[in-house]
């Protein structure tokens, strides 16, 4: 079984596209519709090897999720941000909060797969 990737995005379309790309490359995918939903899923016990996370989302955005992640047992799980944002301040803040990468939408599936594969290889 491939590494589990938790995909957090308020857009069903994006979750579907990411899921399609990652499952095609042998990953398992779990989905959450915003940061709060993701926290609940982590609290319920799922253990992803990688998290792919949007920034602008209702209820809890991606940067707030990174802060919350620091307080959870899943702290240390690599997180790749996948967003339309590209503001240097925001990227810097995400890095400071432990984000491992930043991809700008519209994303190229091969880039995401390459990032996920590289992270999976480091974890193995």
């Amino acid at each position: 079984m491939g590494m589990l990737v938790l995909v957090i995005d308020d857009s069903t379309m994006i979750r579907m596209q990411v899921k399609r790309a990652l499952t095609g490359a042998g990953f398992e995918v779990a989905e959450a519709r915003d940061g709060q939903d993701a926290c609940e899923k982590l609290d319920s016990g799922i253990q992803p090897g990688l998290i792919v996370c949007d920034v602008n989302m209702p209820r809890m955005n991606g940067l707030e999720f990174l802060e919350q992640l620091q307080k959870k047992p899943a702290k240390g799980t690599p997180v790749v941000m996948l967003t339309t944002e590209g503001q240097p301040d925001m990227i810097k803040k995400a890095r400071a909060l432990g984000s491992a990468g930043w991809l700008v939408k519209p994303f190229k599936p091969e880039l995401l797969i390459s990032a996920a594969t590289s992270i999976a290889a480091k974890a193995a």
Partner: protein
Amino acid sequence: MYVMIAAAEADAWPRLQELLDKLGLRTERVSDASELTLIAACDPPSVALVDPASWGWAHPILSGPGCGDPPCMVVGEPGAVLPEGAHSMIPADATGEEVALALMALALEGVAGDDDGSSFTAWSATSMARLDSLLASEFTGMLGLGLTAEPANPELPLELCAEIHLALPTHNAEVVLGLGFDLASARALSVLLFGEDLGIDMMRDAVQEFANTAGGAMKRAASRDGLTFSLGLPTPDIAHIRDATYGRRLVADTFSMSVWAHTLRIDDMRHKVTDLQEGAVLAEAVLGTDGDVLVPAGAVLTSDTVRRIHRELGPDEVVVVSRAA
């Protein structure tokens, strides 16, 4: 944007008319006072272009009750005296781009009331002119096929739409970007994206994500020009389509996408923490009890942020937002 052309000569400035059509701007021509009274009262224009010979009858009606007092530009010879009440004058032989930018800057004049407004106005005018290539390039990347920009088609039904707000609290201004599809185009797009028609709910979500992508592209472009917008969340609205400064259709073989953009002036609003809502943009940073920045200016509030402010400062602290949710 809706442009009223008031000129005694019914077919004045054919080149200008052609240009406005190419820009996808809606126009109405009037050639006398009674026509102007009738049309402008039913449908007040956002901008008026007036022939100097028609200024005497056109301006009193345009600036009167019911017409909304739109900014007026006179088409005249260089060095001619600007009539009282006119905002600006362009020469009759101005290039197409000069006319387009002047019109757009004129429509944005209301946004430019503060000291920093001029930079925003200049940016808006040029960014609207660049929006075609920016969005065509962004969506080409997303869809993997070429799109061409054509004039907007007001007759086209827009069954699936989304708007996204980009707030600029430092300039009390906001840009709204909107996207819309007719049903056949939405279905064709679904097939293109997913290999099958996944139904209306999925496409509604996809249109919002398209708006998000367009907003992100505009935000990044503005950032390169030194303006830092806060990007809101897309909503299924067409609230600003009528007043849009920019209107176009991006066309591919199997579908077309209507795009519009509008600029708004927004005022700061003071809210108690208990009244804050998700989606509002902070006009000023919220400081914690230790004086450190708790939430920076420009942040788009989420329910999590509101909870954090509430926890730190209590329910009665006043926070300044530049756009209500």
